[in-house]
């Protein structure tokens, strides 16, 4: 399939959830899908997977900051040279996303990183151990949050 065919197929798949998504095309080879109903995230991923468009490149966490008070999680699926981006928004405190690891085993490492860096809960993720951060890293301190304060590490008892 060439890029145009992939894009058309992706649109068709996502189109089945038009009540739960907002689709846009930021660049010629890209389709951006804002998933407004979090429960539909995994079904949409399965839909892409079944049509062989489900090569998960990366999961990106974005802290939109205390004013917006939300976080964004991007899932980039990249068949060929097309980038299919699924995007969800969750509350900044206590936000959670469903795990993709049952559908896509390689998502596990990405989700572990997402959790330890942002503090986002990943519902259904079995292995929630630290991936990159050291064992003695304090709980509740998430480095990639915009309000991360390195001084809180120095203050941590016993040193990190």
């Amino acid at each position, binding site marked *: 399939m060439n890029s145009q065919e992939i894009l058309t197929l992706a649109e068709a798949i996502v189109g089945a959830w038009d009540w739960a998504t907002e689709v846009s095309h930021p660049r010629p080879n890209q389709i951006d899908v804002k998933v407004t109903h979090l429960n539909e995230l995994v079904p949409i991923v399965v839909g892409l997977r079944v049509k062989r468009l489900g090569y998960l490149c990366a999961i990106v966490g974005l802290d939109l900051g205390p004013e917006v008070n939300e976080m964004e999680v991007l899932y980039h699926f990249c068949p060929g040279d097309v980038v299919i981006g699924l995007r969800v928004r969750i509350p900044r405190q206590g936000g959670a996303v469903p795990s993709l690891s049952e559908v896509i085993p390689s998502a596990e490492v990405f989700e572990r990183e997402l959790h330890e860096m942002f503090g986002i809960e990943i519902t259904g993720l079995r292995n929630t151990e630290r991936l*990159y951060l*050291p*064992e*003695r*890293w304090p709980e509740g301190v998430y*480095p990639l949050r915009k309000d*991360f304060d*390195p001084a809180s*590490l120095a203050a941590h008892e016993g040193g990190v």
Partner: protein
Amino acid sequence: MEPKKNVWDEVVKGLKTWARVNSPWVLHFNSGSCNGCDIEILSTLTPRYDMERMGVKLQASPRHADILLATGAVTRQARERLVRIYEQMHEPKFVIAIGSCAISGGVFEGCYNVMGGIDQVIPVNAYIPGCPPRPEAIIYGVVKLLNSLLPAGSQIPAALPVPENTPEEVTTL
């Protein structure tokens, strides 16, 4: 009794220094570097630079090493292991911090998971700057350290000649 013991101690010490300096056993530890310095250290063992000609032997165990070649800015995860290795080395022991990261944290200075250089964790005897330092610079640094242990007049030359059998393609490109 006392004066004889002192003379003997000096002789033994001299012999030990000579043996250590002429055949130092070196341990390499990466505390979280990008591998740039590590591959240049490994390059010193390969035919073009061949540090083994000088008797420098790469060891795997801290218990047998005289010199620790440490790279990286020291990540929190690697810090404990670095300390442990240092503690396991027998005296006298020397530490050489290789590369900008090992000296000060390099470009990663200030990063949340980085201590900021080897001497933030263990004592360092010599620093070899560079990002990464060339193999010649690494050899030069190691030799300078060894020379500091030898009496003047019996020092190792720091510039090593290119071995005779090096193929032309390697030297003339």
